[in-house]
């Protein structure tokens, strides 16, 4: 629901990194978004296309990779990945302990961008 605000941040950040780097065009932006985010990739691109008009980022493609949700067992400290829909039923694959803590899955990272 807040794709617009997130997209504005993405544009601000990539334009900041492009400035002074002799960039004529940003072709592709690689993002990693955690599995727990409820954002729709299609809408992020849609807003980006709108917001980036007239900038070097116009027509850039957002390549969004979904990062996994990673849990850490509170008992044996092992880390393991789970699907988002399994979060409420997760248990440690090593020791069966149901008490687990989320250690990754919330990130919104701009990794890098391909530019001309």
């Amino acid at each position, binding site marked *: 629901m807040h794709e617009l605000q997130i997209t504005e941040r*993405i544009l601000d950040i990539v334009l900041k990194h492009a400035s002074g780097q002799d960039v004529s065009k940003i072709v592709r932006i690689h993002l990693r978004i955690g599995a*727990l985010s409820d954002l729709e990739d299609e809408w992020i691109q849609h807003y980006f296309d709108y917001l980036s008009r007239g900038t070097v980022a116009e027509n850039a493609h957002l390549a969004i990779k979904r990062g996994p949700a990673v849990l850490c067992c509170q008992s044996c400290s092992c880390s393991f990945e789970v699907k988002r829909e399994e979060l409420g039923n997760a248990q440690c694959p090593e020791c069966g302990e149901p008490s687990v803590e989320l250690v990754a899955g919330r990130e919104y990272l701009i990794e890098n961008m*391909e530019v001309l």
Partner: protein
Amino acid sequence: MSDAVRLIEVKEEIHADNERVAQGLRSQLGQQKTFLLNLMSSPGAGKTRTILKTIDTLRDRFRFGVLEADIDSTVDADLVAARGISAVQLRTGGFCHLDASMVAKGLAALDLSALDVVVIENVGNLVCPAEFDTGAVRNVMILSVPEGDDKPLKYPLMFTVSDVLLVNKIDYMALSDFDLQRMRERVLRLNPRIQIFEISAKTGQGFDQWAAWLSREVSSFIGPVSNALTGSALPPAQH
């Protein structure tokens, strides 16, 4: 001019700016000795009523203020202000959540030197508010019985970021097939550290335990209270 594609490393977290503002706000509140609580839930879960009942329970101990966020109305702030509680309405103008900068603006409209606790009533929504650090010291969420025990499966992030879950409208349980035990197991799997209190903001059930938790948290954050409510408060701040 070369038309070879180059790679520029960015490695920037999109929420980093908000988190910086939120951290700054928390340390400022620590210095000013004001505890900030972020209350989140879906629309109609009973946020306003829970706030009013909580303040009624603790008003002899702490001085409360409220930040009301709504997309476009002042009905909640009016209700709170009618009880003589300092309230600021933040109209988010369509935004589905509050971020730390919006909260900082709202706090600037309150006299924090006269308040021990400020409660943020976040926008009614179980999705977006979970993603934005407001600068609050503690996050509290409400799940009300009529919403159903499957909500932890549908909105896992909200349950993950909350320090406390208030299960409200517990007086409605007899009319519902809500399975408390199943909900508890689901929530604890998402967040083993969460505190769960069963309450009814209508009847007052469970408020003793919830208020005791809140009192402890506030006292440990702001230190000994200057007993402002019995007239022996600190002298007025010098301007």
